């Protein structure tokens, strides 16, 4: 007994160190994406408030870039409008537009963003009150950004393409073949496209679009272009995709609300 006590006395610091280190490791191992998002939820109100204060200053300093982004988006929208008004002339198409909204866009501002980590997250200044809920898609004027992970009343966190937990079904524009987009944690500029079978012919520079299979994103939102590919993993290509969104300079994004998401998911659940 005496020796045991003396042992604890002599090594108390080492034991404390091991105890604390174990707690930290348990945090890491147990911290699945879900738990991580819960913890973020606890903290989101505080940090969201702090980040939005600081962001005021940051945004002022980067007005130039933000303006440029808005100008680009305007231009793109005007082009799209021209295209649509051309189609409007044919009466058949018009019936499509008399239906209620299918997709609705909530413009939001990024208040916190990280790009250099393995598990990056983005915080937006819109939440449940503004109609942003879990599992909604997020895009920018440049293309795909990510998916809403959790939302509180006035803030929400987004899991962007550049997070190791991100998965999304996307397709190659040239042949409409769908694969899975994910990120391997190397550079915020590139992601990996897998599950494209080797017999397909693909070219460097091919455009990658969202497939529309997930009910989160509409079909045909730009994701990026093929930078390079190799065939080292058996029957599938290993494709390196250059992302069209520059995550390092992102200020404004749009959250996509799909009014038919619930309907589609219910139907799919029934059939399963």
């Amino acid at each position, binding site marked *: 007994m005496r020796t045991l006590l003396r042992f604890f006395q002599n090594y*108390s*610091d080492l034991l*404390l*160190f091991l105890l*604390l*280190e174990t*707690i*930290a*490791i*348990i*945090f*890491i191992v147990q*911290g699945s994406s879900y*738990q*991580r998002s819960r*913890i*973020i939820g606890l*903290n989101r109100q505080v*940090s969201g408030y*702090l*980040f939005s204060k*600081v962001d005021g200053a*940051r945004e002022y300093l980067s007005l130039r870039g933000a303006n440029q982004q808005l100008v680009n988006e305007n231009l793109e929208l005007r082009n799209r409008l021209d295209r649509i008004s051309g189609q409007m002339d044919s009466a058949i198409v018009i019936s499509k537009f008399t239906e209620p909204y299918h997709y609705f866009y909530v413009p939001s501002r990024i208040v916190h963003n*990280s*790009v*250099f*980590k*393995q*598990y990056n*997250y983005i915080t937006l200044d819109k939440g449940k009150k503004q109609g942003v809920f879990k599992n909604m898609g997020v895009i920018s004027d440049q293309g795909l950004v990510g998916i809403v992970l959790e939302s509180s009343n006035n803030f929400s*966190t987004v899991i962007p393409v550049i997070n190791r937990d991100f998965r999304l079904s996307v397709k190659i524009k040239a042949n409409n073949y769908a694969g899975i987009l994910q990120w391997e*944690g*190397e*550079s*915020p*500029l590139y992601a990996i496209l897998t599950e494209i079978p080797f017999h397909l012919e693909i070219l460097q520079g091919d455009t990658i679009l969202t497939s529309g299979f997930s009910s989160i994103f509409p079909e045909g939102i730009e994701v990026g272009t093929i930078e390079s590919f190799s065939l080292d993993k058996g029957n599938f290509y290993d494709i390196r995709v250059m992302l069209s969104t520059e995550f*390092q300079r992102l200020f404004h994004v749009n959250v996509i609300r799909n009014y038919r998401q619930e309907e589609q998911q219910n139907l799919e659940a029934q059939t399963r």
Partner: protein
Amino acid sequence: MYILARNIVRFLVVILFQVLLMDNVMINGYMVPYVYLLFILLMPFETPRWIQLLSGFMLGIGIDLFENTLGMHTAATVLIAFVRPYLLNLLAPRDGYEPETFPRIHYYGFLWFLKYTLIIVVIHHLMLFYLEVFQLKEFFSTLLRVILSSILSASTIILSQYFVFRK
């Protein structure tokens, strides 16, 4: 008492400074200066070891909460809080540390502080970055990130000695 109050204030300031300001400084999209280690570096020599460990733990949790990296900073910070006393012994001048002094450039000179900071920062970054990747596949690309980030963190910490903690 005065020293305790000063350390508590420093604890809070360092966390806020890190998450609000330093996390927005991204160089090359890869590297962030982790200046919050200053708190551990500047703790008084005679701080009991269990206090060093516990404050390292709390500091890590504070940073983790803001960075959404549950446990990673905690593990790395506790490690350096544990290593620090041994390192201080190793780096001690011939006649030991004088009472009423702190581990700073002001008392022990640039070269001593550079060695001290670099070793602590490298240990911390090694632990942090490899925990983050959690695999050996990208061993060398991670090592490169550790080296570059360590240089950045260490130089920011040393610069802060000249501007913020001059005396």
